[in-house]
């Protein structure tokens, strides 16, 4: 379960310019839920995602995941928390363009130093699941947008995380590929994952397998 309690997040651009990204946000997400955060650019959706993922810390308030205070974790513990619990699909995918598909997907596993056999098994399973096994040795920058997205999803899934977070996942895709992504989301939900998607793509609105749609406006949740 994910809880955000009285979250405030202020970004200090410089001494005289501060941006209040989130104001007194309270949010609870149950295990296995698929939540869509909708709102315009700059509304604070991405900030909520990064707080849940432990990528940044709130200015005040608490982020609690499975009874653990994520917002107070030290840097290294925060990384371990992300490694073990979070699969993050970034807006721009954030793949390493000169590495191969296989090497990119393996990145979250590298610090764990698995045996070669373990590594191969996990990679093959995940690549097969997202239909990119046939392109495993291809350099990522030579892939199409849809293929790159599947690599990004595979990378987020390789550690079998409980929570999957997607930030504007269809921003760079056409309608066909966006719908394919939605299918993947449905499959992930059926596996019992907790999924949070931040998007202003209307394709996500009104989907039957989405548990809740929450509007974010000017750093606050519209209830």
């Amino acid at each position, binding site marked *: 379960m994910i809880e955000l309690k009285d979250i405030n997040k202020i970004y200090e651009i410089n001494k005289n310019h501060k941006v209040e990204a989130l104001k007194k946000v309270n949010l609870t997400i149950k295990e296995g839920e698929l939540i869509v955060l909708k709102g315009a650019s700059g509304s604070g959706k991405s900030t909520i995602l990064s707080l849940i993922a432990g990528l940044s810390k709130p200015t005040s308030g608490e982020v609690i995941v499975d009874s653990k205070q994520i917002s107070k974790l030290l840097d290294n513990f925060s*990384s371990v928390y992300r490694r073990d619990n979070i699969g993050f699909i970034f807006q721009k995918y954030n793949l390493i363009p000169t590495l191969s598909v296989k090497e990119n997907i393996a990145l979250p596993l*590298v610090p764990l130093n698995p*045996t070669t056999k373990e590594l191969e098994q996990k990679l093959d399973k995940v690549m097969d699941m997202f239909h990119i096994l046939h392109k495993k040795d291809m350099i990522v920058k030579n892939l199409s947008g849809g293929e790159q997205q599947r690599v990004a999803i595979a990378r987020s899934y390789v550690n079998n995380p409980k929570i999957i977070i997607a930030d504007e996942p269809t921003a760079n895709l056409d309608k066909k590929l966006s719908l394919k992504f939605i299918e993947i989301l449905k499959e992930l939900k059926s596996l019992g994952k907790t999924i949070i998607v931040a998007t202003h793509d209307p394709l996500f609105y009104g989907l039957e397998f989405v548990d809740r749609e929450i509007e974010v406006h000017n750093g606050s949740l519209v209830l």
Partner: protein
Amino acid sequence: MRNKINIYLIEYAINSILRQKYKAIFITTVFTLLIFLLTAVFFITNSLRYELDSTVDSLPEITIQNIKAGRECDIDVDMVDDILGIAGVNDAVARVWGYYYFKNGGVNLSLVGVDEYEKQYKKSFSNIVEKFDLNSKTPSMVLGSGVEKIFKDSYYDEYFNFIKPDGTLKKVYIAGVFDGATELESNDMIVMSKELLRYIFNIDDDKATDIVVKVANPKEVSMVASKIRLMFPNTRVITKQDLKISYQNIFDYKSGVFLALFIVGLFTFFIIIYDKASGLSSEEKREIGILKAIGWKVDDVLKEKFYEAFIISFFSYIVGVSLAVGYVYIFQAPLLKNIFIGYSDLKVSFELPFIFDIQTLVLVFLLTIPIYVGATIIPSWRVATLDADEVIR
């Protein structure tokens, strides 16, 4: 999970280096050049120092030179008897030696006169001379290999004509050549009898170039030297310890000259370091942010950066040292050697002996690699400790 070295981190590091190929090549080249220069200088100094240090103990404990009006001049042979009377003195010998400028060869030769009947020389003479012909025509001399070569180039194969101060010639036959093992010591040397040398240089029988003294107990050397100074206030008394210090000074001075040149190279290197240390490119920062976002700890990031820096610097180290070994010991350090031995044309050439000194290799390693590794890790650490979110955006 395994607790051994994480091979995947090393693989990632190698990929990372290859991703920035041209930058890596540039840094490696500069670094290799620096290590090469530094190591080559250390090798040259080590070789020369080793020769000096290992032979200095065979030198006489005290050398006495006569000073007149602030300049060195011939010394009276009579003084030997007075010196022999000092307690602790084992032996005192009047030496006759000097320099002879061989115009055709364009070199200064060192001529040393020895009395073949002096006890300490006879036995060792035969061991150190190659092709020594005891029955050669007289008068005869023994040459260093460099001198033999110079003479041969001027067609003096069997004898040489010395030109005396009055312009007359003195023919001296070549009886032998000193063993190659003594090249660094004997290269410009000609050894002949004292009598003959006196004749060639026109030095009277009651005069000598200087006097060398052997003292049985090394602890008494400075005391004997003081006594000699008191007895003969117009002399300069040089002990073996003084020679050791002067060797040290000479190399320190020459090393200082080199250091000035090296600093220019080091400056270039530090510019690179500064560029690295002052901050990573936005691409590099983003990459660290991504790695942290997908679950890498700060430690993992730093370990990877360490491997990256270590691979480049260690590669440069091995290549630099290999090049230095070849440059100094196989090609005899052209250009660089002259900094230590001078640019004079009046010197015969010689070969640097190989000394394997692990301390030098460790010193070069410590002077170079940790700096570069530190300069790579520090900015990475700064970025890695920021919030990943800040870095990615």
